């Protein structure tokens, strides 16, 4: 008889526990899907994982009895691998939130999976503005920046600041073309003029002929609508040709602080760029960045995408905390996140639009001269602040299907 009671107890115990867990589920699993091995490994990569862990600690949820687990994965910049990792995370590992996702193709693919599996996706690293336009979903929030911010920020602000004529150096693929088109539109809307453009093949090592054409055009601003190694190479070679010293301005349309760090100020000085986060903006960003740098094995300051991961995860956890339990219903959580105003050390106060676009100010920076810089990571000086409502696509112009009701 005793044996039976024991056995009954043994059967019931897990049931009771699981029932309890169901009633007040305080388990959260966060997956950082990023590029750990290739071109985005510095601007996102392991720093993004660290940012997510810091957000978990800063949320204080573990002290309130929550279990928050952070896992990470490398999508190798392949959309099919990214989508299959995301699918497995949602299905098998019961991940609630996926963050970061550099690479536009991977981000769009994972966004589909998040919708299908009703999870939550916070995109920080990818720039593709389709995420909050034609391809928006009720499960995705696009956090840090997008191609509109970069194009519009740099285009409008620089033209207003006197850069009336523009010449574009664009990478010959969809991203380069989109960036050039959007920037040109912003330039022309502000009264500037595009006097020429040249396309270069992807992964070019010799930019001399393109740069000479740009130099000969006598345009006030040379816009670099490319990314990664192409941007670094074109900036280095522009420095060799003395383009910025000749009075022309070089505008990097997509450039992270890690790349400036790698280029060093001698090559990068005078470059103008748009970013939504810089570690040395104010006391709050400085305190966050100091903590980040101390714990970062690479010793780097946080980049804009990494700060976005921190801010996004923190807001997600705040929303869960407010709800009191994790419903594991992605669309519902995202809706709640859109209700709640955001506030954190990295981006200050902000909010999320109904199309999933996180709104905060953007900044136009100029890279300092070596003589102006006080040391490593002291790279940017602020030229202009683009107010939050002007930094992103106005909601009235968004083609997101969620907005049509």
């Amino acid at each position, binding site marked *: 008889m005793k044996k039976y009671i024991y056995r009954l107890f043994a059967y019931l115990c897990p049931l009771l526990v699981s029932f309890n867990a169901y009633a007040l589920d305080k388990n959260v699993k966060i997956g950082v899907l990023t590029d*750990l*091995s290739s071109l985005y*490994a510095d601007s996102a*990569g*392991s720093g993004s994982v660290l940012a997510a862990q810091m957000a978990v600690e800063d949320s204080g949820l573990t002290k309130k009895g929550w279990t928050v687990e952070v*896992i*990470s*994965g*490398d*999508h*190798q*910049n*392949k*959309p*099919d*691998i990214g*989508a*299959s*990792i995301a*699918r*497995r995370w949602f*299905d*098998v590992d019961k991940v609630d939130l996926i963050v970061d996702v550099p*690479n*536009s*193709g991977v981000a*769009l*693919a994972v966004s*589909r999976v998040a919708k299908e599996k009703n999870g939550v996706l916070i995109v920080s690293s990818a720039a*593709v503005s*389709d995420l909050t336009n034609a*391809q928006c979903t009720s499960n995705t929030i696009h956090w840090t920046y997008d191609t509109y911010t970069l194009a519009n920020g740099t285009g409008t602000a620089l033209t207003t600041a006197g850069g009336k004529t523009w010449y574009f150096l664009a990478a*010959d*693929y*969809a*991203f380069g073309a989109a960036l050039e088109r959007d920037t040109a539109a912003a330039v022309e809307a502000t009264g500037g003029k595009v006097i020429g453009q040249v396309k270069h093949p*992807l992964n070019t090592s010799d930019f001399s002929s393109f740069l000479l054409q740009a130099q000969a055009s006598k345009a006030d601003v040379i816009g670099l609508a490319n990314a990664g190694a192409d941007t670094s190479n074109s900036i280095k070679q522009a420095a060799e040709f003395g383009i910025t010293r000749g009075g022309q301005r070089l505008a990097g349309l997509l450039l992270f602080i890690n790349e400036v760090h790698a280029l060093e100020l001698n090559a990068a000085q005078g470059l103008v760029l748009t970013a939504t986060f810089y570690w040395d903006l104010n006391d709050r960003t400085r305190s966050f960045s100091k903590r980040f740098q101390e714990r970062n094995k690479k010793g780097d300051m946080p980049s804009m995408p990494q700060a976005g991961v921190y801010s996004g995860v923190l807001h997600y956890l705040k929303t869960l905390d407010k709800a009191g339990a994790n419903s594991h219903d992605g669309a519902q959580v995202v809706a709640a996140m859109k209700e709640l105003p955001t506030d954190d050390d990295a981006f200050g106060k902000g909010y999320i639009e109904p199309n999933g676009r996180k709104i905060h100010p953007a900044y136009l920076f100029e890279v300092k001269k070596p003589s102006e810089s006080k040391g490593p990571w002291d790279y940017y000086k602020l030229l202009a602040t683009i107010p939050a409502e002007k930094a992103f696509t106005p909601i009235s112009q968004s083609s997101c299907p969620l907005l049509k009701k």
Partner: protein
Amino acid sequence: MTTLTTNSIANSKPTAPVRDEIRTFIILTALLVAVPISGLYPFFVMNALCLALFACAFNLLIGYGGLLSFGHAVFLGTAGYITAHALKVWTVSPELGIVLGVAASTALGVVTGLVAIRRQGIYFSMITLALSQLVYFIYLEAPFTHGEDGIQGVPQGKLFAFIDLTNPIVLYYVVLAVFLAGFFLIYRSINSPFGEVLKSIRENEPRAISLGYKTDHYKLLAFILSAGLAGLAGAMKVFVAQNASLTDVYWTMSGEVVLITLLGGLGTVFGPVVGAFIIAAMQEYLASFGQWVLVIQGTIFVICVLTFRRGIVGEVAHYFKMSL
């Protein structure tokens, strides 16, 4: 009279190698059919099956024809793009999408094959690589592929208007059926007179020519068959991943299929399948090791090439004196 009868009976009995292969094939099929109840994640197995079919198609060319194509990804990717575009933009039915995809890569196979088979060895590989890179850059620029964003959110639809492919289990069995059909076709080709001629070309092409075979015809046919089957794998991959991207046309994918085939066992029937499952498992389950995935892959490849040159299946078959 009697001798003739016994002779013919003896001949009609399957020989030992064929028996081994059929046995293994039945075991493999049984294992794969049981996947959904085994708790293995079906999407992982589907991915691996697409990769396996692709590798089998590649193996037909290198393992049996001795032709190392270093641009095979282009057939996988072409079918992927055409199928995805047909499903999403032209909203055709899944079966028609697959047919269009396979037709496109077969047609590309005819063109590439006609140019490439005129040369042997390294020159053949370089021509296939050059042509595949050419096509890659076309896809990078062409508006319908959406460049590096890829074709996303491809609807899966209903096969023959009644098989619902959005259900993972149903999709799994459809992918499995297509894989087995493709695998069987390759198996039959290898063990047909056509396959024998192909092997003879691999061993000694001038001799095959001297015996009166038009080796170019055989090589071209093998190339087209391989391209078409790689296309079939690409078309199925669209249903699994629901996207088509530049990854599948880039030369690294062509390199990956070489790795898979060498790892599993070059010129073995089941080698590419085993290799594909190993590589797919490494990509899936080692993803959390981050930057180490590629290092681990490289190390395994080096170890494999240095210690068991016949590949995994090749070594097993050699040890047990079986044909696999």
